[in-house]
């Protein structure tokens, strides 16, 4: 169920799903002139194609022109500026380019210590997420190798630790809710709760203040705990039913035995 006030992440999700649906429906998934031409080129002009193909963008049918502009449907004029072609974005334009879709993240990033150094040595989106081979965001992106490109790993480690447990809880709860759902249990409110908690958690990733990450993570974990308790309650009810059921079955088998014995006495 979609809440009445639609938050940015949901809007993005909806757009993604819609474009996915449209692409699948029209069936032109990976065919466009960018891929056709560049795929055949050697060296640096052809290199992005296989990288993109392995990316989460390709998986969700986000194509070259969505970052680089241009007209993928018109081979001859694909890269004309009057068709909106932008080429390689300047370093300072990178967050804006990604932020066209990732609206909420852009805001978080620009407000963070990272974002405030944009253009003066600070990282851009691609510094951590890579460009063409962009992967699904996960905690793995926070690692010593990446972070120490610019500064020490100490604070990043603390943040990662604070978030790791939450990430695990979300994954576990997600699986548990899914399994309840496949048993026909009413899971809408729990799903909604988890969805909200996950969104709240995701905004933490671009906010690079260790203390805030720690305190927010704690609050989110509390919410997740509530959801976990609801699932526990359902599972406990199920256990209780099993016990009552076992008693009922025992009673019936006893009755069967008694009927049988009584029957024997009559037969003789």
């Amino acid at each position: 169920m979609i809440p009445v006030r639609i938050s940015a992440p949901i809007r993005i999700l909806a757009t993604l799903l819609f474009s996915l649906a449209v692409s699948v429906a029209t069936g032109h998934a990976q065919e466009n002139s960018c891929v056709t031409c560049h795929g055949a080129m050697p060296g640096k002009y052809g290199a992005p194609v296989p990288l993109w193909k392995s990316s989460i963008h390709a998986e969700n049918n986000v194509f070259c022109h969505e970052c680089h502009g241009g007209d993928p449907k018109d081979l001859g004029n694909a890269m004309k500026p009057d068709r909106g072609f932008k080429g390689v974005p300047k370093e300072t334009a990178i967050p804006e380019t990604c932020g066209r879709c990732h609206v909420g993240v852009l805001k978080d990033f620009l407000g963070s210590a990272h974002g405030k150094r944009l253009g003066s040595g600070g990282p851009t989106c691609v510094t951590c997420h890579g460009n063409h081979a962009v992967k699904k965001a996960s905690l793995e992106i926070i690692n010593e190798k990446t972070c120490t490109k610019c500064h020490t790993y100490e604070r990043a480690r603390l943040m990662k630790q604070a978030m790791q447990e939450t990430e695990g809880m979300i994954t576990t709860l997600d699986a548990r809710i899914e399994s309840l759902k496949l048993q026909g249990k009413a899971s809408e409110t729990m799903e909604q709760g988890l969805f909200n908690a996950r969104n709240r958690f995701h905004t933490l990733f671009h906010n690079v203040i260790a203390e805030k990450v720690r305190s927010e993570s704690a609050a989110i974990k509390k919410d997740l705990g509530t959801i976990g308790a609801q699932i526990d309650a359902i599972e406990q009810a199920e256990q209780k039913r099993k016990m009552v059921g076992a008693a009922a079955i025992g009673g019936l088998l006893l009755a069967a035995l008694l009927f049988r014995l009584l029957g024997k006495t009559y037969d003789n």
Partner: protein
Amino acid sequence: MTLVRKLYDWVEVRLGISEVIEKEMTGYLLPRTINNWYSLGSVLLFAFTLQVISGILLLIYYVPDADKAFKSVSVIMNEIPFGWLIRLCHAVGSNLMVATLFLHMFSVLFMGSYKKPRELQWVSGFTLLNLVMGISLTGYLLPWSQLSFWATTVATNSVGAIPVIGEYLVEFVRGGKLVGPPTLGRFFAVHVAVLPLVIAGLIGAHLFFLKRTGISAPPTRNDPATTTRQGSSYHYDKHEGGIPFFPNFFLHDMTSVSIYMACLLGVVFFSPYLFFTPDSFVPANPFQTPAHIKPEWYFLANYQILKIFPSEIIGLTVQGAGMTFIALLPFVDRGDGRYPLKRPLFMVCSLGGIAMFIALSIWGHLS
């Protein structure tokens, strides 16, 4: 003279109830050699009653409308007190009832009880099996889940293979070109009213045939080679010197019913999703065909037959021929002997047939 006795006497003067009790209960004699397979009929009566009662309770909260059906089932399963129990009893009960019908049929088959003079019992019983499968099929659609929707689409599709009238028939059954809201209305009416009435009527006929002919005695190795009844006159199998239906065999029946009920609750409490697939818990979506839609287990053989033949019409013909053969078995297999071990050809055919049915079902399940 106690009050109960007084009441009994009062009713006796007016209705002659003792005569009825004598005839239907204590004086209704069954062969001494009767075995527990004979109690499956009572088990089925009980199972049917249970379906009727749980079905009526479900009627209170179920809404037979494409917009509301899935949600109403979800409300029954999650919010209505004991709704889950009633719904699971109904859904699991339908499966166990079909299974018990198969067992009842097999016991009649191997004891040769379908033979003269009990052809009508066999025909009415086999028709009942098919009607119960029909009521299961129509009930399958009602939750309006992905499984319901697509299983019904597949099932009604095969009707279209019938020559000439097929297409018209599919449209009549569905109430439109495709499975949709009108199909739900039709299946609902058939499931909750038409088929229960027809089944109840046919159960009445089945029991009437049974009572008029008298029950068969289990065959033994020492049975005479010819039946005692070759003539052209009616004769009721009295089984003089047998055991009375009440209380003796009634207690056998109660034993079997208790065991049946224990099995039912066993599934309901310990493996409630045995007969559900994940698609049962996703609302019907006419625009998204799920990957592996399979019919219920008792239709898997039919489903596989339709799949292995190159054209649907051939598959349907084969099925129709098979069904007709089974229905008319008593008129094909007219020999006198009933003891199975003395009838090798019959044994080979029956066991072969059952093995083929099971093999086709497994094949259908795995394919």
